[in-house]
């Protein structure tokens, strides 16, 4: 399709929004390029009104003049999909940042757009389809190995209709642009299939047989999450919290330890420093499941707070589209978006420039439906090939003033399956992870027995009540039984809920160890201890706490661990024997 270039003039500039007066045909969300001097900067149509179209500009608009020309492409904002996405670091528009650094140095110069995938690299292609096969878009014709991932090459999902494979390339090493197959449509037209394809980011990839109910836990090795507030494979969760409560540290811990095949990290409007930590540290960390570098299973989309705001809006869509693409390979992908509030703010900024009637706190009225449709792109699906694949989405939320009543948190809570609320109170007391054990909830099944879990939750609730009561009536006025419940809840908090992310052993507790630990803790919780006075009770629990905490730092298969477990057993029975 060769089209004439459509060029239209700029008539207004307002921050990162430009207004264009058009005469030709214009599509909503179409990509266009504005010419500023020598640079061409990327924009997207966001509103058409009368003879004017408003475009959000993905770069700084400095220097743009009335009368400058804008070139329309007739394409929606898309990403390139194909082998080589893993280990990459992209900005919100899928520009590879390390390559950009080679080209333009320390700073992100505007108007430079590079190809997302390496076109020189050779991939070993193995065909699985044959000439004469009938195929439809999304069907697999072969695969290449991308690290440990079996990366299927497909008939581009954007195509329409049925095709017959005319010829297919033999096994061998090829670049992404080499022709892997020629297919013929009903009209007899021949098209070439390469290893890559494009997909518009704002439209979900819906090429699967059915959506299933997410029920298997996604192990994150974080005890509070897996045991108390589990996340299901294909589920959604959010982690709202005031600043400094540890949202990002928690997200990093999850991204490192979660048992997912592919992890897409969308650093959206947050600090660049956080991304740098990932960039510099992940290559040296090993993924315990494959023994390879953590980077090998990661894709990072990085549009930090000082990078252009409109690209921030696009970045979460870019991220989820990449996750969907790997789901199509039959993989379990995890998308972590930090933070969805910054994305919502980007929407708000643009809505303000469009002078739309504002909703609550000046967020646009369509905020809720956008958040809902974003999280709905998560899910466990059965693909047409019969395999299952999933996307689990975890979004952090940064509520203004730490107040969960604000629109972004509320809209998010409506659509997620688990709420891991971080609290200032807990982070101030250095009780990390600061997930509030009473306020948080999850609709997914836990890895431990439900009855025992409910019992433990009960202790936490009553412990907190007793603590409140003690503040009013004092410790001396508190009944011994209540006091013991309080001590038990504190014990559970210290030894199980709190976890030191920065320790190699304590920072990641696999499911098996969690079950074993939880059994021990549960035993303490349900043992009816008796003590002569409160001081004795406190001393006993402090001792027990020390024993458990020390054990949390021991490798599970060592002698030390076994000895410590023995001591713990004796101490517990020693405490309860007094009772007899």
């Amino acid at each position, binding site marked *: 399709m060769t089209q004439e270039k459509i060029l239209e003039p700029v008539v207004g500039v307002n921050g990162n929004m430009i207004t264009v007066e058009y005469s030709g045909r214009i599509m909503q969300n179409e990509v266009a390029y504005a010419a500023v001097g020598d640079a061409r900067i990327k924009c997207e149509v966001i509103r058409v009104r009368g003879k004017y179209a408003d475009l959000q500009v993905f770069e700084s608009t400095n220097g*743009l003049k009335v009368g400058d020309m804008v070139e329309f492409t007739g394409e929606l904002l898309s990403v390139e999909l194909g082998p080589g996405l893993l280990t990459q670091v992209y900005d919100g528009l899928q520009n590879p940042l390390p390559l950009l650094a080679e080209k333009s140095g320390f700073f992100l110069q505007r108007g430079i757009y590079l190809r997302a995938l390496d076109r020189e690299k050779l991939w070993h292609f193995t065909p699985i389809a044959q000439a004469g096969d009938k195929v439809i878009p999304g069907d697999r014709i072969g695969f290449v190995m991308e690290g440990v991932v079996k990366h299927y090459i497909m008939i581009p999902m954007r195509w329409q209709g049925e095709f017959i494979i005319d010829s297919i390339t033999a096994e061998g090493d090829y670049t992404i642009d080499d022709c892997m197959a020629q297919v013929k449509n009903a009209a007899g037209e021949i098209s070439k299939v390469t290893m890559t394809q494009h997909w518009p980011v704002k439209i979900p990839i819906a090429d699967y047989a059915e959506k299933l109910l997410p029920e298997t836990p996604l192990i994150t090795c974080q005890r509070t999450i897996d045991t108390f507030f589990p996340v299901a494979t294909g589920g959604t969760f959010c982690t709202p919290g005031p600043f*400094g409560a540890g949202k990002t540290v928690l997200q990093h811990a999850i991204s490192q330890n979660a048992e997912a095949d592919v992890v897409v990290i969308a650093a959206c409007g947050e600090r*660049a420093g956080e991304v*740098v930590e990932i960039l510099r540290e992940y290559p040296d960390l090993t993924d315990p499941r494959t023994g390879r570098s953590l980077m090998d299973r990661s894709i990072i989309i990085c549009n930090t*707070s000082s990078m252009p705001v409109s690209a921030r809006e696009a970045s979460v869509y870019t991220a989820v589209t990449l996750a969907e693409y790997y789901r199509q390979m039959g993989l379990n992908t995890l998308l972590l978006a930090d933070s969805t509030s910054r994305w919502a703010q980007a929407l708000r900024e643009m809505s*303000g420039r469009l002078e739309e009637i504002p909703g609550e706190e000046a967020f646009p009225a369509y905020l809720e439906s956008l958040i809902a449709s974003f999280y709905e792109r998560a899910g466990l699906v059965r693909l047409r090939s019969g395999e299952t694949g999933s996307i689990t989405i975890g979004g952090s939320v940064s509520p203004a*003033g730490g107040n969960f009543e604000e629109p972004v948190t509320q809209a998010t809570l409506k659509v997620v399956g688990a709420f891991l609320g971080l609290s200032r109170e807990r982070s101030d007391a250095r009780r990390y992870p600061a997930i509030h054990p009473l306020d948080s909830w999850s609709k997914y099944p836990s890895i431990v027995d439900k009855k025992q879990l409910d019992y433990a939750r009960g202790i936490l609730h009553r412990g907190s009540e007793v603590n409140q009561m003690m503040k009013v009536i004092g410790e*001396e006025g508190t009944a011994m039984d209540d006091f013991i419940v309080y001590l038990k809840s504190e014990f559970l908090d210290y030894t199980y809920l709190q976890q030191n992310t920065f320790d190699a052993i304590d920072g990641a507790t696999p499911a098996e160890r969690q079950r074993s630990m939880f059994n021990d803790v549960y035993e303490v919780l349900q043992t009816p201890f008796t003590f002569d006075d409160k001081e004795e009770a406190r001393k006993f629990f402090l001792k027990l706490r020390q024993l458990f905490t020390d054990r949390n730092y021991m490798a599970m298969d060592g002698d030390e661990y076994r000895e410590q477990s023995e001591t713990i057993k004796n101490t517990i029975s020693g405490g309860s024997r007094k009772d007899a």
Partner: protein
Amino acid sequence: MRKVYHKIIKISGNVITVEAEGAAYNELAEVTSARGVSLAQVIRLDGNQVSLQVFAGARGISTGDQIRFLGREMTVSGSDALLGRVFNGRGVPRDNRPEVTDDATAIGTPSVNPAKRIIPRNMIRTNIPMIDVFNTLVESQKLPIFSVAGEPYNELLARIALQAEVDVIILGGMGLKYDDYLIFKRTLDEHGALSRTVMFIHTAADPVVECLLVPDMSLAVAESYALKGKRVLVLLTDMTNFADALKEIAVTMEQIPATRGYPGDLYSQLAGRYEKAVDFDSAGSITILAVTTMPGDDVTHPVPDNTGYITEGQFYLKGGRIEPFGSLSRLKQQVNGRTRSDHRAIMDAMIRLFSDYRSTLEKQSMGFRMSAWDEKLLKYGKRFENEMMDLSVNISLENALDLGWEILADCFDRNEVGIKTDLIEEYWPEKA
């Protein structure tokens, strides 16, 4: 010769609108009025209507005044000749010495490519235990001091600046009281630091639009020094005034306010400045310490709230002390694992116990009998406040850690402090 425009059709606040052709977004212009010549900057284009914010304020501008577009954006010199000098928000000397124009660089440059940053590795020692032990300051960190009017935040800023080992100090003053400016100048002078300092000072008496330029000017200069391999410390005080100036312009431009009148892009605006803090791969670094005064001591006010999400922690200055709760250095994990093996344990344990002490204080104030444990906490809390928190304490990190163990051992038994047994065995001081 550039064309001169005369047709000013709107004057509102500090923003004027003129009918003109060919003006570029963000371009500078000169406005000549009866009051003299002032710089202005294009902030909106709408057909042939060009809106400009006038740095010297729109007061006294008439509808027939002259506007000449300069065809360039705001620039500042990045040369070494700036050292020891004082400028206003527009970069005009305040010290009656000649202008510096060589080596001009644009302000408000694009963001640093995250791939060109490195993980900060160097601790900045301040000899203030509340910082060194509990919330370590790290080179290339961006950190605000949250405070309220009347607290000694500028003194704290100056003290950290003088103790920190950096090559260049850049002071950006926004809405600064003239007295405070003189105090800064004197303090830096007394310690012989003036010759490695550049100051951009906007005082409370100067036009408000100039205030908007101060962070960009300061950071642009910092950037050009850092690219030459210098370690630069930028002090910004007070960023709340900067945010208020943003608000003023936004309201004049009839933008829809988000919260409490502040524009919806407050977060991005603040982030654009704070994110200039950087440790360059194979060049120097920029560390930013800023003061954010909280109106009504309210941390949920939009300015401190947005700041807190952007910066890598904050120091919460209250009652003349750095509060352990609310204060945070997000980068401390990068360095405190390599200082001394007990650093993290002491940091966590002492804060946890101090939090318990605070609840005990509450109980005490309600008149409850104190248990033996409460008595221990009370003793501990007092010592902690006097020997650790007080800003007059000036001891090295190592001495502060030793002092921490000494206080713990004085107040508690070994298994009451919640520290791993092996560390207790290594560091727990034997009672004499």
